[in-house]
């Protein structure tokens, strides 16, 4: 009983903390992100399992978290607004080749992150990019400028 309640509290608490940590630009984990994941996971497991390290207790905790995850995924489909709250929405970082400074600051994205995303798409520099969009998973999509004279 206690484990199930602790697992529910831990799931939602971690969800809030991870959500307000802002999206990691680039969508890939760095070494410092690993520190965060392992440390947070390790700390929260202490209160979830408590002193009862039996297979029964741990199985119940895993099932609870799995069930919660399914319920949240189902709720996100049913209520799109909930999806925006939990995962955020895509954000335009660059429009018509102009960087949106307010958005970049708010999302803690650096110009270097945009340049890296452009290079990954085979675009040599940002002045050849038309749009940059920070996706919900933290990835940055770059849309190249159309060549002049293209029809």
């Amino acid at each position: 009983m206690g484990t199930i309640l602790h697992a529910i509290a831990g799931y939602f608490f971690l969800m809030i903390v991870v959500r307000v940590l802002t999206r990691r630009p680039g969508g890939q984990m760095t070494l410092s992100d690993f520190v965060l994941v392992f440390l947070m996971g390790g700390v929260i497991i202490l209160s979830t399992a408590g002193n009862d390290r039996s297979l029964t207790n741990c199985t119940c905790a895993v099932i609870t978290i799995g069930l919660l995850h399914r319920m949240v995924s189902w709720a996100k489909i049913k209520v799109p607004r909930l999806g925006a709250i939990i995962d955020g929405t895509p954000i335009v970082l660059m429009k018509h080749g102009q960087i949106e400074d307010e958005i970049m600051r708010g999302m803690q994205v650096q110009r270097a992150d945009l340049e890296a995303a452009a290079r990954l798409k085979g675009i040599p520099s940002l002045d050849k990019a038309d749009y940059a969009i920070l996706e919900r998973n933290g990835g940055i999509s770059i849309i190249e400028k159309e060549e002049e004279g293209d029809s």
Partner: protein
Amino acid sequence: MDTQAELKPVGDNVPKVDGTIAVGEDLEFQRRWWKFEKVVWSFFVLLLIADLAGALGRGPLANAKRETADGTLQVKYERIQRENTSSIMTLLPGQAAVHDGKLQLFVSDSILKEFGAQRIIPQPETSVVGAGGVTYTFPATSTPMTVQFELKPSFIGLHPFTIGVPGDEPVQAKAFVLP
């Protein structure tokens, strides 16, 4: 029988940027979210400050001391405790509490149940159950004397407790057990 999968046409109802790129951006929501983030982080910082100060247990604000009016017994305890986390309750009886080389202390049942007393230091000579608690007897000589209870509460909430020397005014107090 002809089975037909349920098909749904692709609706292009995602808000577009400049009428060309379907992003589904919601800047108004994002700005509100940034404000919400600031509130959440401010709350987290306050929570950490409260923890450092001991408002969440195990710190200066959590430490409490109660004494009987005649000074027969002084009790040092943590007014805010944490579930399944050990804390020490220290009893400092005065010389008036000792009779015939024996010190008797009454503790209410809540110390044993709600606050989960694990150990008593020193070990009592006898323990007698009754009157909503247990009366312990310790061999004693002269002050200063210290009796310690190691507590490990397993019931969340506000719990009252009573500790005293039989025949004298007891110390009555409450402590809150956090999850």
